[in-house]
Structures are given as structure tokens and as C-alpha cells.
């Protein structure tokens, strides 16, 4: 095991010391193909991403809106699977052993891969956390136990529907950080009012000392900055993925791959700027 322990913990401690929130950037692994996706991901820390969230594409992404649905299809059509995603993480780790990587996805591909084998292979590749959308606490022990054993955090999701009765259930067994889904809805659609997010963060803090990242509906540097004033991290996904969609040619290939990488990273640096100056 060459894995360095606690990248997520170290990163949130570093951010706290800096007195700022972090930027979590989401991309679907393998979108629009393995090669371009890999070069974009390697450029994310330089552009200002503090934590990388990588989507494992699934045919039936029930919690995702049109942008991430389309990105999943692009990745799957390009042949992305779990092995390819873990290989991308491994390749990233050759140059960067500090930036935390969290895999996001749906349970079935992991279940079919085998939860224990997946946990070990993901840990060995350099994965730090998992966000699995369709496995609530009532069902997640079969993944959480082997993942934690391999040193991977299973990030729990809280939502606007998580009341004070539900929150203790969600916090039991939580590790890494808490992901607050700021709207009742799917990714890339509505945006929450910052005051509602602030209230939710206050409510969650009553039940957990873990850092709180907020996602869903954050599309601009300004919105990211607003969230960065009230939470420990802001997650941006659909808005980044949409840039890839807009740079696809009619033939399903990218118009110009170096350009695509630069366009994505430029947007990420704008988001990072928003997050970094939010509290100053």
C-alpha cells in the first residue's frame, strides 16, 4: 500500500488555516474521451481546484440533469469503465499526491465489480472518497465497511429534506466531509438561495464536526463565492461539463482538444478566483 493517509483531512485543514473555502470541481471520467479527460483532470489543481470529484459514468443516472446525463453517455460511448477510471486516477497520482480525489457515481457498477475488490483497487489507485448517490445509510454498510477498511471515506449526502430527525441517521458512519445537496432536485437545474444554504449548514453543524461541501445549482464564479462564504467548500459540476458539451463537433468528436482543455481550465480558474476572494 503506497497510499498516503488522509488527503481529504489534510486538505480541509489546509483550507481552514488559509481561512477560505475550497473549490470542488466535478467532471465525468472519460468525457469526452479518456485522453482529453485525463489531460483536463491533470490541469485542475493548477487552475485552482482544491478537490477533484470524478464521475463514474452510469447508463441510468437518476439524480442527474441533462448536462451530466449527456456527459455520462459521451464517456460510456468512448468506452469508459471502472478500470479506465481507476487508471486515470493512478496516472494523476504520479504527479500529484496531495489533491484529494472523490469518485461519484451510482451503486450498480461498484456492486458488479465487487465492493471489496473495488475498495482495494480504488485505494491503491489513489482515491480518497466515494459519493454514491443511490445508496442511503440504511443500505450502505455493505460498501462503507470495506471502503473505510481500505482507507476510503464514504461521503454522506444531506438535502433540504433532511430534517433534524433524519440528520442523526445521516451523520452516523459519515466520514471525509458532508455533501449538502442544496436543492430538492437533480444536478444542473435550480439554484438555492444563499440564506437557505446558510441555515442548512448551521443545522448540519449541530450534528457533525465534519467539513461541509455544498453542491447542485452552482454555475458561476459569483454563486461559488456566495456559497464559499457560508460553507467549507463549493462543488461545481454541470456548468463545467456543459463546456465540454458545447465544444463537441457535430460528428461527436471534439472540435479542438487543446482548446477544450484550456477553455475548461480557464473557467475553473475563474471559479477558484471567486472562491478564494469570497471572504476577503
Amino acid at each position, binding site marked *: 500500500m503506497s497510499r498516503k493517509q488522509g488527503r481529504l483531512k489534510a486538505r480541509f485543514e489546509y483550507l481552514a488555516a488559509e481561512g477560505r473555502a475550497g473549490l470542488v470541481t466535478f467532471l465525468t471520467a472519460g468525457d469526452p474521451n479518456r485522453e482529453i479527460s485525463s489531460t483536463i483532470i491533470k490541469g485542475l489543481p493548477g487552475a485552482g481546484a482544491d478537490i477533484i470529484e470524478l464521475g463514474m459514468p452510469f447508463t441510468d443516472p437518476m439524480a442527474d440533469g441533462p448536462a451530466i446525463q449527456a456527459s455520462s453517455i459521451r464517456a460510456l460511448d468512448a468506452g469508459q469503465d471502472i478500470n479506465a477510471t481507476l487508471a486515470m486516477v493512478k496516472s494523476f497520482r504520479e504527479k500529484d499526491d496531495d489533491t484529494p480525489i472523490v469518485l461519484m457515481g451510482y451503486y450498480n457498477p461498484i456492486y*458488479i465489480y465487487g465492493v471489496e475488490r473495488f475498495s482495494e483497487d480504488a485505494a491503491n489507485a489513489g482515491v480518497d472518497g466515494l459519493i454514491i448517490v443511490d445508496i442511503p445509510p440504511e443500505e450502505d454498510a455493505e460498501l462503507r465497511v470495506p471502503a473505510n477498511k481500505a482507507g476510503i471515506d464514504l461521503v454522506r449526502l444531506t438535502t433540504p429534506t433532511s430534517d433534524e430527525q433524519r440528520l442523526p441517521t445521516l451523520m452516523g458512519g459519515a466520514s471525509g466531509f458532508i455533501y449538502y445537496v442544496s436543492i430538492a432536485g437533480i444536478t444542473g*437545474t435550480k439554484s438555492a438561495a444563499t440564506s437557505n444554504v446558510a441555515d442548512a449548514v448551521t443545522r448540519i453543524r449541530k450534528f457533525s464536526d465534519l467539513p461541509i461541501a455544498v453542491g447542485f445549482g452552482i454555475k458561476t464564479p459569483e454563486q461559488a463565492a456566495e456559497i464559499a462564504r457560508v460553507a467549507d467548500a463549493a462543488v461545481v459540476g454541470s456548468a463545467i461539463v456543459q463546456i465540454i458539451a458545447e465544444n463537441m463537433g457535430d460528428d461527436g468528436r471534439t472540435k479542438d482538444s487543446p482548446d477544450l482543455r484550456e477553455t475548461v481550465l480557464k473557467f475553473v480558474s475563474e471559479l477558484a478566483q471567486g472562491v478564494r476572494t469570497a471572504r476577503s
Partner: protein
Amino acid sequence: MTINSAEKPNTFKTLPDSNGHFGIYGGRYVAETLMPLILSVEKAYDEAQADPAFQAELDDYLTHYVGRPSPLYHARRLSDHLGGAKIYFKRDELNHTGAHKINNTMGQILLARRMGKERIIAETGAGQHGVATATVCALFGMKCIVYMGETDIARQAPNVFRMKLLGAEVVPVTSGSATLKDAMNEALRDWVSNVDDTYYIIGTAAGPHPYPEMVRNFQKIIGEEVRQQMMAAEGRLPDSLVACIGGGSNAIGLFYDFLDDEDVTIYAVEAAGKGIETGEHAASLSAGKPGVLHGNRTYLLQDEDGQITEAHSISAGLDYPGIGPEHSWLHDSGRVNYVPATDDEALEAFQLCTQLEGIIPALEPSHALAYVGKLAPTLPKDHLLVMNMCGRGDKDVFTVAEALGVTL
């Protein structure tokens, strides 16, 4: 985890457990946003079950609006033609709206009203569940949105129009294979976005707990009536039961009351499409493996990376890559025999039944009929076989015409 070696239990009627598990199957695999809602549906359903007034109201609508009990009919000419078992049809195609689906939508709309919900969503494949949902929404003056794959909209035009006449909004779903699975994804996306006022009427005995149990309980009246009707007609229980299976609501509805009657042999007929060997089919139990989709763990058609593969069936109602979790458990335990029938076999049975009995069956039960056609000739004349005629075929005449090369 022993998937294929479930021990024979003393009774098949104690599940699911309190978390909705049938052995390793079932459960609640939904986005966290939906969990409080799913738990409140479960609580409301438990309270409704314990309330005699709820059952009394449902019974009243089933009798006077749906038209229950549906007849148990001895299909003499088909029995003679096949030259074996004495074949009975459970005539659930005679229910209001033409299928068994309304048994469930009537129960769930009463629950939604009890919960104070005002907006109803549903997914549909063949359109039978969509029509049954639109019907009860019209009856109670509730807003109704039905998600339906574009492919299915094209092949089930009469039902699409019926839903619109009933006041429902039919939303075409273009993602994925644009069939039932994708309609269910879209309905779940709607629900997660409208948690406050919306109730999701799932049409089959699948999805997150409590749906598989609740839908089964609303459909088990089919088997309960068969037991009484067969006792009245023959003075004994049937020897075998046959039903088609997509998600499995008509099948579990017929089977459930007989699960602990060991002498009753049970067959569920999956859609084998163009043949299991071609890969173009919807036979989750014959050719799939356990996985997690749409809120439950169950057998699914999928590839080696756990990606869901597209199902194929001439019948829109069976065109789904999964199956209800209780069926997965009954499959592993060996209590129910799951067998395939192809598109061509179903088409042939469709015509045979129409010509011999004057009953135009839906393409879904035509799969069950196809298996009856194989099974009945091997059985003695005193063997009592009951097949669930779960839907009528008016909606399918365009599809059948096309398959037979007839231009209407």
C-alpha cells in the same frame, strides 16, 4: 452472500422484512432527497392498512368502478384445441381501463389523497398503467403527469390519446432507449424535484420499499378471487398458474395467495424477444444477474461493467431490463418457474386466442398464452390451469398489424 442457494422456507408469505428486503433483494436504493418521502409513504401505507375505512373505500371502488370480481372463464375451445389441460382465463382484461393495472392505481390514489398530495406522476410502458393512473386522477380531480418513452409513444398511440383525453400530460422521454426504464428514470427525477406536493404511483411490483410490497398487496386480490372462483367451479384448487412477467405485478397478484399451496405449480413467462440467444430480449431472470436499479436490488440485464443494457420485446409492457424483487427471491428459492416466450410465439398465441375464443389479448398476456400452448398439451384433461388474462389487446392492433405485414 448465497445468491442461488436460498433455503426452502416454511412459508413464502412473510416478506419483505421491515427494511423491504426479500432475501438479498429489494431495499431502498434512492437518492437521499427521496428517503424522508419514501419513509412517509411507508408510514402512511402502514396506517392505511390498519384502517378498516381505507379498505372499505377501496373495496367499494373496486366493486362499483373497476368491476371486480373479474370472471374466471373456462376457455373450452382453446382447451380442446391444445388437447390437454382444462384452461381457465382470469379475466382481468375486463376491468375498467382494460387491464389489471387499475387494481393498484385505485389503491395508491386513495393513499395519495390520504397523504394530502395533489400532483400525481407515473411512468408507463404499454400505456396501460398510464391510462389506469390518468383514469383515477380524472376520477378524483388530481393533476396527472405520465412519463413515457418516445419509442413506446410511437407504438402505443391509442393509449397515449386515451391518457390525454383523461386530462393527463404525457411527457415524452428521449433519453437512453426511450422505453419504460428511461420513463422510470425521468419520473424519479420529477419526484426528487417536487417532493412537497407529488406522489409517485409506480405501476409494477418494483422500486424502493414499500412499493413492491404495496403493489403486490393491491394486486393479490386477483389470486384471492381465483381461489374462491375455482373452488366454486371445480371444488378444488387449480393445479397450475401461468402469468406473463415484466416488472411482475399481474404475476405476483395471481400467485401470491397460492405461494404456500405446495401442489400448485407456478409459471411466470418472461419476454424472450427475438430469442434469448440473440441478446435482444427482456428476460432478466433467464439472462440477467442481481444488481441495483430504480430503488431496489433485483435481477437486471447488464454488461460486465454493471451498465444496464437495453431490453427488447414486441410488448411495450414487458420491455424492461429488471423485475420486481420478490420475483428474484421466488426465482432463487425455486418456488416459481420462470420460463421464456419469444415475440413470434406471443404473436402466434395472440392470433390463436383471438380466433378460438373471441378474446383479443394484449401482447403481454400473449406471452403467457404462448407458454400455455406448450404446457397444456403435456398435461392430463383433469389438470386445472389458470392463466391471467391481464390486459386486452385493442391497444396492440397496430403493432400486430405491422408485425404481420398488414397496412391499416
